[in-house]
């Protein structure tokens, strides 16, 4: 199929669907009409979209963990523990690595080995293998809104099965689940595959079933300037809306500087509203998600609590609609359910304590918001220009040209010409703007910010700063100062 940002026809969708549902035997369990009926019976308090809209209206920030294990009963136990002991507002089902690579045979093997071992040998829940009936057991056993979280470039069958089973939110996107998660998968392919997922959500919407969609905000999670991830978020949002998505959550990963992080969440919402109304997508409801620190974590649990709490405080002060929570075991691999609940509780405490405060709307905050928006506009307007009015084509061409460029991405489709570094206050700036289509003013802004830091450190601006920033966190710091 030719890539274009245009809603797929029913014929186009159905033709691909026949193939997708044959990728694994459980695909045959998908019965769309029955799925719609099933969703109609899901009470409001278990519907992701409704819970987010309520939170936005009330100025709440909801908590959500990451969690998934191989077997259904163990997964149900895990989620219910995070609900009752962790006081989570929203629950995830994190998918295992084999399923993310569409290796369903290996996932099946993982299920069987886990059964034998009596513990999960997979790093997530293999939803495709469990099939619609198996996944529904989870849906029916957990009294909270549920979302699929993964990192799957081709997530079509996973979407068919989990949505048919009653999941009410689905994470991912054609750019955000490619560039940070794959090496040689083309953007054309992943954008098409995610148009399929979005169209599926759109079909549910046509039948009155509201399903929340969430592009993956943090990208590579390392020194990604807000304007870069915001541009990707807006593009993925526009592509989703074109396929009929009506409830979208756009995300951003904590950089660590309070002012920049609060500005980023506000700029994200403003930018999305601006571009959505420009492109007549105004009937889609927007919310935001803030990801706690995605970089390296301290091994010490108390220090990890500190990092988690700072993410929670920032999310609360920024008034993001939800926050994705880390655990004090982050540096050590997959957390125990207890550690997961601990991260949630520390976060909940701060969200509650700060519920009556926001960072005041000062001139300094406004300036930071304006910088992020100006940068993102430069990128987005160039993307649409390169695509001759089409954001899907434009995104592919923009990545090829370095107009869109994600730092430290494994994908060969990211040009990797930009170099981020922290400024003297720890905000993420660009040491090298690469081919980003910034105005001279914006280029000068970054240049000045990096120079200001260089001067404070008594050294010339250099790539060593980038290296120092990457290694700084292992010393508990944001800015990598010279020794």
């Amino acid at each position: 199929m030719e890539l274009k940002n245009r809603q797929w026809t029913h014929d186009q969708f159905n033709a691909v669907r026949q193939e997708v549902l044959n990728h694994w035997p459980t695909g045959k369990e998908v019965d769309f009409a029955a799925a719609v009926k099933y969703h109609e019976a899901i009470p409001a308090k278990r519907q992701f979209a409704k819970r987010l809209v309520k939170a936005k209206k009330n100025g709440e920030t909801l908590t959500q963990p990451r969690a998934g294990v191989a077997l259904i009963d163990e997964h149900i136990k895990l989620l219910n523990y995070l609900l009752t002991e962790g006081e989570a507002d929203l629950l995830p089902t994190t998918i295992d690595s084999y399923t993310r690579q569409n290796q369903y045979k290996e996932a099946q093997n993982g299920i069987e080995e886990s059964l034998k071992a009596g513990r999960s040998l997979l790093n997530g829940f293999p939803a495709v293998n469990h099939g619609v009936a198996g996944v529904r057991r989870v849906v029916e056993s957990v009294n909270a809104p549920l979302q699929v979280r993964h990192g799957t470039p081709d997530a079509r069958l996973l979407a068919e099965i989990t949505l048919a089973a009653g999941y009410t939110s689905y994470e991912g996107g054609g750019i955000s689940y490619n560039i940070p998660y794959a090496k040689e998968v083309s953007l054309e392919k992943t954008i098409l595959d995610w148009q399929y997922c979005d169209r599926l959500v759109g079909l549910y919407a046509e039948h009155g079933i509201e399903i929340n969609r969430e592009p993956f905000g943090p990208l590579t999670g390392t020194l990604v300037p807000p304007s870069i991830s915001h541009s990707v978020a807006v593009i993925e949002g526009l592509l989703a809306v074109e396929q009929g998505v009506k409830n979208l959550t756009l995300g951003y990963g904590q950089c660590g500087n309070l002012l920049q992080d609060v500005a980023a969440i506000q700029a994200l919402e403003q930018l999305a509203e601006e571009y959505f109304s420009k492109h007549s997508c105004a009937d889609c409801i927007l919310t935001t998600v803030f990801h706690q620190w995605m970089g390296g974590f301290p091994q010490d649990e108390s220090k990890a609590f500190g990092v988690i709490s700072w993410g929670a405080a920032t999310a609360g002060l920024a008034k993001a609609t939800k926050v994705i929570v880390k655990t004090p075991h982050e540096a050590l691999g997959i957390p125990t359910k207890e550690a997961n609940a601990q991260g949630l509780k520390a976060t909940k405490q701060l969200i509650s304590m700060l519920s009556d405060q926001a960072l005041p709307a000062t001139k300094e905050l406004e300036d930071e918001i304006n910088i992020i928006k100006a940068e993102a506009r430069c990128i987005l307007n160039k993307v649409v220009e390169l695509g001759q009015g089409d954001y899907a084509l434009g995104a592919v061409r923009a990545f090829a040209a370095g107009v869109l460029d994600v730092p430290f991405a494994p994908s060969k489709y990211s040009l990797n010409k930009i170099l981020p570094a922290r400024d003297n206050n720890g905000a993420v700036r660009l040491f090298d703007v690469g081919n980003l289509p910034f105005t001279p003013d914006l280029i000068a802004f970054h240049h000045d910010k990096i120079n200001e830091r260089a001067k404070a450190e008594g050294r010339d601006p250099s790539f060593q700063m980038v290296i120092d920033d990457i290694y700084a966190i292992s010393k508990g710091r944001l800015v990598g100062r010279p020794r």
Partner: protein
Amino acid sequence: MEKKVKVVLGVIGADCHAVGNKILDYALTAAGFEVINLGVLVPQQDFVNAAIETDAQAILVASLYGHGEIDCRGLRDRCREAGIDDILLYVGGNLVVGKTDFSGVANKFQDMGFDRVYAPGTLPGKVIADLQEDLTARSKESLM
């Protein structure tokens, strides 16, 4: 113009984390090396092939997801079989899961044929200095 020394760089195994790889690429290039960067998700044979094709003098292997021992075992043999037994082999990253005594890890990888083994958090400058030292030592040997 002096010909640049070539080094092959890559992340072995099934990990997508590319941060260290990008940093090292940049630092090595800035230090005057010609870097053949294979990126992430690189199988053993690709390292060997790239070294032969480009006539590289070193292979720098990163492993970040804790399965370095399995992924790296046999790399020296493959080099030998391919006729580049004398190539420098370096390895670094999170070579094992969790906290362990690093000297034990270093010994194990040295036994597997690696010339240099780096602990987590090693700075690129250290790798570059070692590379320059090892290459100088070799060129002296070859002059003798």
